[in-house]
C-alpha cells in the first residue's frame, strides 16, 4: 500500500471513529492527528495526557507502575516494598528485564518481590504496624540492603495510612534511608504521574543526602539519566560514553545504586535519554546545582553520531577527538550491518505504539534500515513529547495518543504495515492477523538496542520478524470461520 495523502489519512480517522457514539467520537478525535511538520506546537493538533474514558480499551498503566516499575524498581541495592495487596507487585515482578550485576537476595534485589500482602484486617485496622514489622524483618533477613522504598498501592491512600511516619521511625532504627512514595495507582491518568511522584520522592529523600561530602571529581563526570537497562541498554550506552573519555558516575536507574544517585549532583552534565520519566529531576538538578541536561538518542547510527557529537560539544578538544575516533571505529561495523540488512528491509512499513521515548527515538533506527514509520503514538505522553515527535515523523503520517484497542486494530487493518512495534497485549491480535509484531517495551526478550552494539541486534531482530514465513501462511481465526462455512455450503 502506498503512503496516504493528508486528506486520505483524515478520512481514515473519520471512518474509524464512525462507530462511536457522537460524544465519544468528539472526544477521541482530539487524540488522533495527521502529522504536519510545519506545526511547532503540538497542542494545535493533538490532545494528550487526558483521562481515558471507561468503556474503551486503553493500554495504559497506573501511577504505581510508573514509580515502582519504572523509576524506583531498577535501583538494585534498595528493597522496594509493594505496600498493599500482593498482586500489584507479584504480577509485575521482573517483567521489565532491568538487568543488573549483583547477587540477588544478598546485595541486589531487582527481581525479587517484597510485599506487605494486605488482608481484610489490614484494610479495616490499618497497615502501619505491618509495615513497621516488615521493615524490621527485611533488616534481619537482608542486612546488606542499602535502603528501603515504600511503594504505596491503591488501598494505602484510600484508608489513609501514615507511611511517612512509619518510614521516619524505621529509618532512625535501621540507620538506612526509608523512602515513602505516595504512588497509589489511582493517582493521575496514567503511569506518567507515577514518574513525577517518584522523581519528587528522589528529590526530597535521596538527591541531597551527600551534599557537601568529600568527592573526587573529574571534569568529565556525567550521569546517564532515564536509561533503565532493559536487556542491557544502559551498559551499551555506558561503553560508548567511556570510550569517549567520559566518566559515568551514575546510571539512573538501570543497574543503578543508591550511592550513585546521591553522587549525581556532583556531575558536570546529565545525559537524559527518557525525557518523559526523568525530565523532572533533570530540571531540578539544573536549577539547584546548575548541572545542564542534554537529551540524546542512542538508537541507530545516524542518531548516535549526532548525539555523540552533541555530547562532545560540552567538553574540551580531547573528548571531541576521541569521539571522532569512536565514530570512525564503529563506522565499518555499521556499514556492514546496513549493507546486510537494508536490502532485505528496504521500504517496509512500521507502525509503533509504545510509551516513554520509543515512539520517536526509534524512528531514526528504522530509517537507517530503509524502513518507514507510518504511524506512531504514546500511551502516556504529554504535549512536550508530541512537540518533539512532530519533527521526527514524516508528513501526513498518523499520530495517535492513548489509542484504544479498537482504533489501533482498525488503523492496522487499513494501513497494512509490514510490522507493528507495540506491547505484549497487542502482540497476539496482530500476529493472528498475519502481521509480525516486535514487543518494543522490553525488546521482545532480546536487546540491548541502544548504542552501536544494540543497533546490530536491532537490525537482526527486525529481519527475523519480517522474514519469518509463518505470517504469510496464517489465516486469522475470524476468517477461518467464513472459509469453513463456504466449504459447508459447497
Amino acid at each position, binding site marked *: 500500500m502506498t503512503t496516504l495523502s493528508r486528506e486520505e489519512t483524515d478520512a481514515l480517522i473519520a471512518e474509524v471513529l464512525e462507530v462511536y457514539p457522537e460524544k465519544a467520537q468528539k472526544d477521541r478525535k482530539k487524540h488522533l492527528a495527521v502529522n504536519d511538520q510545519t506545526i*511547532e*506546537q503540538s*497542542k494545535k493538533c493533538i490532545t494528550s*495526557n487526558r483521562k481515558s474514558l471507561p468503556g474503551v480499551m486503553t493500554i495504559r498503566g497506573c501511577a504505581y507502575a510508573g514509580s515502582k516499575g519504572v523509576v524506583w524498581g531498577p535501583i538494585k541495592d534498595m528493597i522496594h516494598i509493594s505496600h498493599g495487596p500482593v498482586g500489584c507487585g507479584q504480577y509485575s515482578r521482573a517483567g521489565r528485564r532491568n538487568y543488573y550485576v549483583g547477587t540477588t537476595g544478598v546485595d541486589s534485589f531487582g527481581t525479587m518481590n517484597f510485599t506487605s500482602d494486605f488482608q481484610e484486617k489490614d484494610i479495616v485496622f490499618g497497615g502501619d504496624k505491618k509495615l513497621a514489622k516488615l521493615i524490621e524483618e527485611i533488616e534481619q533477613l537482608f542486612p546488606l540492603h542499602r535502603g528501603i522504598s515504600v511503594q504505596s498501592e491503591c488501598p494505602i491512600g484510600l484508608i489513609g495510612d501514615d507511611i511517612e511516619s512509619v518510614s521516619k521511625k524505621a529509618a532512625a532504627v535501621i540507620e538506612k534511608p526509608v523512602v515513602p512514595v505516595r504512588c497509589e495507582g489511582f493517582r493521575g491518568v496514567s503511569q506518567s504521574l507515577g514518574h513525577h511522584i517518584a522523581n519528587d520522592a528522589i528529590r526530597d529523600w535521596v538527591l541531597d543526602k551527600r551534599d557537601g561530602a568529600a568527592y573526587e571529581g573529574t571534569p568529565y563526570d556525567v550521569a546517564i539519566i532515564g536509561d533503565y537497562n532493559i536487556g542491557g541498554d544502559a551498559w551499551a550506552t555506558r561503553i560508548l560514553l567511556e570510550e569517549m573519555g567520559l566518566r559515568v558516575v551514575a546510571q539512573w536507574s538501570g543497574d543503578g545504586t543508591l550511592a550513585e544517585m546521591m553522587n549525581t549532583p556532583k556531575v558536570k552534565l546529565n545525559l537524559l535519554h527518557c525525557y518523559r520519566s526523568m525530565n*523532572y529531576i533533570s*530540571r531540578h538538578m*539544573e*536549577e539547584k546545582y*546548575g548541572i*545542564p541536561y*542534554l537529551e540524546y538518542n542512542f538508537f541507530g547510527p545516524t542518531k548516535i553520531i549526532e548525539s555523540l557529537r552533541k555530547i562532545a560539544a560540552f567538553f574540551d578538544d580531547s573528548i571531541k577527538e576521541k569521539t571522532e575516533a569512536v565514530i570512525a571505529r564503529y563506522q565499518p561495523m555499521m556499514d556492514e550491518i546496513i549493507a546486510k540488512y537494508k536490502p532485505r528491509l528496504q521500504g517496509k512499513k512500521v507502525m509503533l505504539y509504545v510509551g516513554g521515548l520509543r515512539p520517536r527515538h526509534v524512528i531514526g533506527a528504522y530509517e537507517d534500515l530503509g524502513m518507514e514509520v507510518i504511524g506512531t503514538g504514546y500511551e502516556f505522553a*504529554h*504535549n*512536550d513529547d508530541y*512537540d518533539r515527535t512532530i519533527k521526527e515523523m514524516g508528513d501526513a503520517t498518523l499520530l495517535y495518543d492513548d489509542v484504544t484497542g479498537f482504533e489501533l486494530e482498525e488503523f492496522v487493518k487499513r494501513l497494512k504495515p509490514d510490522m507493528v512495534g507495540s506491547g505484549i497485549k497487542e502482540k497476539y491480535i496482530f500476529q493472528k492477523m498475519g502481521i509480525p509484531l516486535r514487543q518494543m517495551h522490553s525488546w521482545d526478550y532480546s536487546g540491548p538496542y541502544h548504542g552501536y552494539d544494540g543497533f546490530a541486534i536491532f537490525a537482526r531482530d527486525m529481519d527475523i520478524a519480517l522474514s519469518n514465513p509463518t505470517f504469510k501462511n496464517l489465516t486469522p481465526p475470524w476468517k477461518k470461520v467464513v472459509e469453513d462455512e463456504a466449504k459447508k455450503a459447497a
Partner: protein
Amino acid sequence: MANIMIRQAESGGLTFYLPKRDLEASIESIEFDTPEKWGGELKLDNGGSYYIDPIAKPPPSAHFPARQAPWRG
C-alpha cells in the same frame, strides 16, 4: 501566581516551562534583557504571555513567580 521555569535552550533562545501543566514553549520576546534589568513581559510562541518582575539577570535555569499578562504591578 504561576510558578514558571525559564532555561537557556540548546538553540540559544529561552524556553518557558510551566511545571504544573507540563507546558513547554519557547519565548519569542522578553521585555527587558540587560544584565541589570531582566524580565518583564514574556511573549510565548503559543500565543500566551506572562509577566515576571524585572530582576538582575538570573542563572541559565531558574524558577520565577509569574503572572499571566496583561498584568502590570
